[in-house]
């Protein structure tokens, strides 16, 4: 399955400044592996040592947070839009 992934600015250094990239995978886990293959180093920013999505980063399939679906096993279909959204703190300074 080919999906479009929206990459947040803090991770765009790893994607050659691209805000949107095309990757494939039958589920989120495979999608992250494909991301890592294309943009080495990105997986450890998204996942912890056990391969689980870090708890300050959310991955959405279309409008839904995979944490409330089937986490890393959440299946994907062609044309899905994936968003990676990290917690950001800026504001006052």
């Amino acid at each position, binding site marked *: 399955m080919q999906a479009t992934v929206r990459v947040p600015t803090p991770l765009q250094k790893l994607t050659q400044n691209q805000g949107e990239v095309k990757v494939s995978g039958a589920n989120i886990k495979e999608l992250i592996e494909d991301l890592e293959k294309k943009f080495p180093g990105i997986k450890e920013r998204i996942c912890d040592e056990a391969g689980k999505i870090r708890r300050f980063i959310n991955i959405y399939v279309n409008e839904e947070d995979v944490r409330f679906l089937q986490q890393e096993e959440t299946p994907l279909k062609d044309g899905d839009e994936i968003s990676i959204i990290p917690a*950001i*703190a800026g504001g006052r*300074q």
Partner: protein
Amino acid sequence: MELREDQIERYSRQIILPHVGGKGQEKLLNARVLIIGAGGLGSPCALYLASAGVGKIGIVDSDRVELNNLQRQIIHSMKDVGRPKVESAKDRLFGMNEDVEIVPYNIRVSSKNILDIIKDYDGVVDGSDNFPTRYLVNDACVLSNKQLFHGGILRFDGQAITISPGKSACYRCLFPEPPPPGLIPNCQEAGILGAVAGVIGTIQANEVLKYILGIEGLLEGKLLVFNALNSSFRQVRVPQDPKCPVCGENPTVRQLIDYEEFCSLRKNKEE
């Protein structure tokens, strides 16, 4: 409460709106809102709330105005550099609208003082710049059942969500844990376009006004994500997490904790 002639004139452009009217204007004049941070988000938010006639606005900030703030913290001016931000903000807001009572708190919010401060307000705007404060403000609002208007910005990205404790997802439902220090850069390290702060702070103000006026369609259970590079807004769903430690089915956080420790920060930064 009867609106004065000058108030009818001042607020005429919003009084004629179907969702506002004289009644709505009275609600605004009677509302009490606390803004955490007189910075990039707090500046536009406070300006719009004061200009709309929100009756009492508290502002918490322990910093002084610096020259590098003026790129985005539009409530402050050249003459304010070196002054406490809350004093500068108070003068600017009161200079614009004397209907509004401005309460400056020249302190940092902490587990010890926040509950005492927010009890006097109907809602809280989070315009802070660090994770310990964000989790502190979230937990304090959930525990005291105060409406929370959250906003976050970095580089060209912005986020906003409105939290109705017990009714919609809280910040911990959205992000259960803060990132370890240093992993997500702050605005000082990563930069921020001033207008992005303006967009998100203004969205927070808009949410506050809707809440006070009883207008539906708040960003409850929905995270608004703004991307300044392609000028896009998106919304993603944020369900209440039954396992949330503060607002879930079996809460483990029943009182405020040490948020510096929770965010694994060494206590080396005194302000």
